[in-house]
């Protein structure tokens, strides 16, 4: 085809050169010259556009889309190139014959031109424009074209056996698609070539079928072989896994068996121990029940014996029991009475000793010891008057604890202890000591009685001097001067009327009261102790 196109191009070049030469010579008019140039330029433009469109698709699309009649020109060229211009037209035979004649004429002309020698004077070696072989081929082709050209219609490949192999399937598919493309292309070839192609396709189809069969056989064989190998491996693995599982199962089974045995052994031991304990307890209960029955039987026998003897030796037993009960109460009462009497006696004795100590004078520690004893004895002595409850009336003495309530003796004893221990620096003086101390105070009291209010050094000095000039008085009188008071207090102390003496002294005022303060405290303590001892003594005597 390329050769044909080249020859065609060369021929057209020559023709154009031969045609244009006389026109250029003959056109002298400017208008006709313009049209000639215009037509030449238009033709060159279209020829160039068509030629470039053949080599460049983009330019071809651009050329056909934008230039009028470009598409028709391209189609015309293509039809010319493919030979359809002369074969596929409506008046095919006429055109074909004319074309054939034209082609034959051209060939003859070209052959003549080729065989025609160029004159030597021109300086160019004579060479044929076209090779003889090429011309013979072109002539042969031109001679066969009109013989048996039929549309190319190829048969598709069909496999007799199903294509299990993917490669074969794809090969068939691609080949059939290619055949479809070729069939749709509308190619036209000589009948001989078409038959040859179909024959080759049949051979290819047979080969593909055979190879498909062989591949299927090979696949089946490989599947069988592989399945055998896999089956063997599976059996071996199965045997191994089974052995492992059996071993593991036996191991776990043994462990579970040991645990279960240990658990049940422990449970059995516990149950045995429990049963043993239960049995021993039951046995102990039976023994206890038996002993109880024996004791009951013994009691019954004893009761029978006692009943038999009750009318004999034990006939006075109930009377004896009542007498013993009465005696018990009597003894208890007597014991209580004796205890109370003993406590009262000791209390009276202690109070007497305490009074003697107060009269004769003794240390404070002795008094405190005596008071502690008095407290102890006072707690032993029951309350003189009963609480009046049923128990006290019935038994004749207080047994319900009401006698333990605090009584006057207890209060007095605790108060006495408080008085003695609260002021340990203040001694409990005797009457003689109090009298002597009062006598020592009497001179100072006389001096203080002469002091003026808010006395200075001269007032004190004067009172000291003039107190020496006062006369002493004796006896009890009701005057309020200091000499009478001093005499009265002295008389009261002498008569053991300490309370009256203290009353007189307390009524003093001023410096006299200040000077007598310590004496009053001592006298009051003595009075308190003496009074409390008298109270305890009186309580003890009346109990």
């Amino acid at each position, binding site marked *: 085809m390329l050769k044909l196109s080249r020859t065609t191009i060369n021929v057209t070049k020559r023709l154009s050169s031969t045609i244009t030469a006389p026109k250029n010579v003959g056109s002298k008019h400017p208008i006709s010259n313009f049209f000639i140039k215009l037509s030449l330029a238009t033709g060159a433009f279209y020829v160039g556009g068509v030629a470039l469109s053949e080599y460049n698709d983009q330019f071809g699309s651009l050329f056909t889309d934008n230039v009028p009649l470009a598409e028709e020109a391209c189609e015309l060229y293509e039809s010319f190139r493919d030979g359809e211009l002369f074969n596929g037209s409506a008046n095919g035979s006429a055109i074909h014959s004319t074309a054939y004649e034209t082609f034959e004429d051209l060939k003859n002309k070209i052959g003549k031109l080729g065989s025609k020698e160029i004159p030597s004077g021109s300086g160019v070696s004579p060479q044929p424009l076209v090779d003889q072989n090429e011309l013979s081929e072109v002539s042969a082709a031109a001679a066969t074209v009109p013989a048996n050209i039929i549309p190319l219609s190829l048969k598709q490949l069909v496999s007799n056996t199903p294509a299990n192999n993917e490669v074969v399937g794809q090969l068939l598919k691609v080949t059939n698609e290619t055949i479809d493309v070729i069939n749709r292309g509308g190619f036209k070839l000589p009948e001989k070539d078409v038959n040859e192609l179909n024959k080759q396709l049949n051979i290819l189809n047979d080969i593909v079928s055979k190879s498909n069969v062989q591949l299927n056989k090979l696949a089946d064989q490989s599947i069988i072989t592989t399945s055998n190998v896999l089956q063997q491996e599976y059996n071996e693995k199965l045997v191994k896994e089974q052995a492992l599982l059996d071993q593991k199962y036996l191991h776990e089974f043994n462990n579970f068996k040991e645990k279960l045995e240990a658990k049940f052994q422990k449970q059995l031991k516990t149950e045995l121990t429990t049963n043993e304990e239960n049995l021993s307890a039951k046995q102990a209960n039976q023994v206890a029940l038996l002993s109880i029955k024996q004791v009951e039987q013994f009691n019954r026998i004893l009761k029978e014996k006692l009943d038999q003897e009750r009318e004999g030796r034990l006939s006075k037993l109930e009377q004896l029991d009542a007498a013993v009960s009465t005696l018990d109460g009597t003894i208890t009462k007597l014991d209580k009475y004796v205890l109370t009497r003993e406590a009262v006696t000791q209390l009276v004795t202690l109070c007497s000793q305490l009074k003697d100590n107060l009269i004769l004078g003794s240390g404070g520690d002795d008094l405190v010891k005596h008071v502690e004893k008095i407290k102890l004895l006072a707690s032993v002595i029951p309350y003189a008057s009963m609480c009046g409850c049923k128990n006290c009336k019935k038994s004749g003495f207080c047994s319900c604890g009401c006698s333990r309530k605090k009584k006057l003796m207890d209060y007095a004893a605790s108060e006495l202890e408080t008085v003695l221990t609260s002021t340990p620096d203040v001694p409990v003086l005797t009457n003689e000591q109090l009298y002597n101390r009062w006598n020592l*105070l009497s001179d100072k009291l006389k001096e203080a009685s002469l002091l003026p209010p808010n006395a200075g*050094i001269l007032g004190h000095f004067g009172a000291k001097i003039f107190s020496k000039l006062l006369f002493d008085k004796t006896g009890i009188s009701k005057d309020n001067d200091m000499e009478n008071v001093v005499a009265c207090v002295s008389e009261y102390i002498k008569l053991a009327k300490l309370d009256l003496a203290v009353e007189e002294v307390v009524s003093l005022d001023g410096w006299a009261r200040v*000077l007598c*303060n310590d004496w009053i405290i001592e006298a009051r303590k003595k009075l308190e102790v003496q009074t409390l001892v008298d109270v305890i003594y009186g309580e003890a005597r009346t109990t």
Partner: protein
Amino acid sequence: MSEQKIEEQVTATPSSAILDNRWDVVLSNTVLKTSIGFAGGVIASVLFFKRRAFPVWIGIGFGLGRGYSEGDAIFRSSAGLRSVKI
């Protein structure tokens, strides 16, 4: 500890001895002030008055007067009463 011992040793003055204690304080104070006045008079006499006698008498008078005034104050008010430490 020493303060506690001192406090324990302090005993209250017996009420009968309050006036006597005041007299003791007044007299001792008067004697002390008189002695100080006497000493001051002697020193002044020696240093400034060529051993004359009147500065000594003046000093004694000042001491006696000071003792009297303080004694009067002691007797008149309770502020002058003092506790006796054994």
